[in-house]
């Protein structure tokens, strides 16, 4: 009887040890890969929540016509890219847009207000296509990753999306659904983790 009890206890101990080991292996396996993939994906999505927002894409048109408003309508008055991304000879971006938002007229403004070059046309592209264009040195002004990080996180015109001001009716313009701090962190994290572009 004593032997039987000892046998049962031994068997149970072995089962418990195996079960414990199995559980810890599972727990040790999944947390290694999944959160890492998820973090990269999150950084990309957070960055693209801003980059693909109409506040950015309105000035990255595919048809040389700047867009305006949350509906991305063609810019009033027939304004177009012109020869240097600044509009026409005597009527250009700076005829109306100054280095700051204008609280009286509702006209938006930021330093070096202009259209992005035609090679940086993003309108109508998917997030992955925008990212591909952004990294392509033949399209991005020959910018390295470091220069892109600087442009995306330091340029006053880019960062205007977080302080877009109010429109002509005094209604605040929609901002991207991400804070400036989270956006900057996401951009740096995405580049630091290899600037991998997910499938569309």
């Amino acid at each position, binding site marked *: 009887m004593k032997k039987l009890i000892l046998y049962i206890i031994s068997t149970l101990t072995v089962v418990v040890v195996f079960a414990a080991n199995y559980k810890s292996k599972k727990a040790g396996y999944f947390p290694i890969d999944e959160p890492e993939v998820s973090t990269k994906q999150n950084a990309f999505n957070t960055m693209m929540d801003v980059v693909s927002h109409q506040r950015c894409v309105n000035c990255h048109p595919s048809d040389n016509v700047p867009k305006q408003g949350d509906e991305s309508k063609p810019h009033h*008055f*027939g304004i177009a890219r012109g020869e240097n991304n600044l509009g*026409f000879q*005597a*009527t250009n971006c700076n005829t109306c847009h100054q*280095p700051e938002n*204008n609280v*009286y*007229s509702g*006209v938006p403004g930021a330093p070096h207000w202009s259209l992005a070059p035609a090679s940086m046309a993003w309108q109508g592209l998917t997030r992955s296509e925008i990212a591909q264009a952004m990294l392509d040195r033949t399209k991005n002004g020959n910018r390295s990753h470091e220069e892109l990080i600087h442009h995306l996180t330091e340029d006053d015109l880019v960062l205007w999306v977080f302080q877009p001001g109010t429109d002509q009716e005094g209604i605040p313009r929609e901002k991207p659904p991400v804070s400036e701090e989270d956006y900057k962190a996401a951009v740096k994290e995405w580049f630091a983790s290899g600037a991998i572009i997910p499938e569309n």
Partner: protein
Amino acid sequence: MKIFFHINNTPKSIEIDDGNTPLLWVVRDMLDLKGTKFGCGKAACGACTLHVDGEAVRSCSYAVKFAEGKEVTTIEGLGSEQNPHPVQQAWIEEIVPQCGYCQPGFMMATAALLEKVPNPTDEDIDKNIINVCRCATYYRMRKAIHRAAEIANVTNPAKTENDV
């Protein structure tokens, strides 16, 4: 805050609480130059157009603080009764205005255009002169712009080539 600039070639210092005040208010209400008009107040109609360092700007959307150290020209400084600017002369010859309210803005926009494009085509005019005239004097204005280019070319033949 104190802001210094030249207005129609005259040095001027102003003291103003809010540097974001539109240049239009300063020109009209502080400097008493009423030729520049308020139209829409949102940089759409062009009635408030004047020049800052020779460039046409919508003064309703131009914070006066940005005029610091610059040369501001209004319709009053474009020419004089005795010596009108070619644009003013052409406007008179073609009898352009109807009510006249928007015309100073159009003339300032046209003067800026002729500085950049001495012989503008109709397409240049369509692209660059985008002000609004509720009397619809556009047809006469187009004639006047071409006429102004002719007058300017006679008075200043060195600038007959479009330098764009």
